[in-house]
């Protein structure tokens, strides 16, 4: 029967399982079918996934802005929207030729990332993008009254992502939103809770001498430069401290904040 069967597929299936051809053939076929299946699913679902991520981040930005007292009137003056801007972190100015639409493409090019020296790398990032997308809100006279800065750093369980809102003096925190983390549920993950984030507004970054003082306290905050710590989440708190200090320091948004202070925006 098998001898008369001209169909190569049937001849292949009729081979003894232990033959070399069949072993390699089955392994190859299973891998090929699986690979096609996985790639197909990934490609088909990717647009939905990125839409989800974008929607989630947008929702958090809106929630952050809404929770800042006194923002509602400013927002309605500005036409209800924040202006979006891509900045060049090295020069502290608006980036030439990179728009929010082309930012992802620019950041997929390794040439647009700067390696960080270990002593400067407070947030444990290893490298930093040269461009970042920020959001500005202006008051009636055109001065910047609020700026939203995306931050990222290293927590206890993994990467932390946050958006920090600064008031027009570029020194007073107006609020924070945590957009991504993988901290321990019930302990470090409480950085997501509004009750913890509520201690950020009004906190100041630097003292009068310009020295960075911000930190997440161990226990209740003492002084205007600290926010409350979370019991059992010292490492997460440290991660937040380092993230804020790095990004608002000279290697992060420092030049940009100086430029805004000088009224260049």
């Amino acid at each position: 029967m098998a001898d008369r069967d001209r169909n190569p597929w049937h001849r292949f299936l009729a081979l003894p399982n232990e033959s070399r051809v069949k072993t390699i053939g089955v392994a190859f076929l299973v891998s090929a079918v699986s690979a096609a299946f996985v790639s197909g699913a990934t490609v088909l679902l990717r647009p939905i996934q990125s839409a989800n991520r974008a929607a989630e981040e947008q929702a958090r930005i809106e929630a952050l802005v809404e929770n800042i007292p006194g923002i509602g009137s400013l927002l309605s003056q500005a036409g209800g929207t924040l202006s979006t801007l891509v900045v060049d972190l090295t020069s502290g100015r608006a980036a030439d030729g990179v728009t929010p639409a082309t930012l992802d493409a620019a950041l997929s090019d390794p040439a647009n990332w700067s390696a960080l020296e270990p002593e400067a790398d407070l947030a444990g990032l290893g490298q930093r993008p040269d461009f970042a997308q920020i959001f500005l809100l202006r008051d009636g006279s055109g001065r910047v009254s609020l700026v939203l800065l995306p931050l990222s750093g290293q927590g206890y369980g993994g990467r932390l992502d946050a958006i920090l809102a600064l008031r027009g003096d570029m020194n007073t925190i107006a609020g924070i939103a945590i957009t991504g983390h993988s901290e321990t549920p019930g302990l470090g993950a409480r950085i997501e809770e509004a009750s913890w984030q509520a201690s950020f507004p009004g906190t100041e970054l630097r003292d009068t001498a310009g020295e960075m003082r911000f930190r997440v306290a161990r226990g209740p905050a003492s002084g205007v430069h600290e926010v409350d710590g979370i019991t059992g989440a010292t490492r997460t708190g440290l991660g937040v401290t380092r993230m804020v200090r790095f990004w608002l320091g000279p290697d992060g948004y420092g030049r940009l904040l100086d430029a805004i202070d000088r009224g260049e925006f």
Partner: protein
Amino acid sequence: MATKSEIWRVLTDPLVRQNPVTLQILGICSALAVTTTLATAVTMSISLTVVLTLAAGLISTIRRHIPETVRLIVQIVIVASLVIVIDQLLKAYFAEVSRALSVYVGLITTNCLVLGRTEAYARHHAPVPAMIDAFGNGLGYSLVLVLIGALRELFGKGELFGYEMLPLADAGGWFEPLSLMLLAPSAFFLLGFLVWAVRSWRPEQVEAPDYTPPGRAEAAE
């Protein structure tokens, strides 16, 4: 073809009598990690049951053509592909839950339960009984996960599925949440108690001791 009662036995045996988690102690890594809330436990249970059932069906369909020498690799490739697709589907349509499950959906691949069932059962049986067996085992796993998830969420947060069950002391109620319930050790304790309870109820599940200590010598006068 198997009789109806036999199919019923294959389906219901893994629920308690042969429960993969409490009797065989398989798949407990994920059982501990994803049971902090009921919603994640239920999602994980559904994902595992789907993967297990589909993998059993696929492997059983090609069981006569899997070469003995590469059978584990073939099985893992099939399981891993299914897991990746499920993970992508969760990310697309249940983004919130998928974030809570983080890497544990991906780790279904290495869940001993999946490979255990395909290796021990699906490889020797026709697709339909193999899928029934896999589905039964998935249900047995889900039963344990949902039970532990419910206990942990109830006593750790005073909620079930995110709805308040016990009014929290913070919000003017009387219930002081047990933070320990949200940490991995509590799942070990609960699982231990569960195994103890099941084996007290069904003593035939108790394993013979591996080692009997020598009888105590009479105290010397």
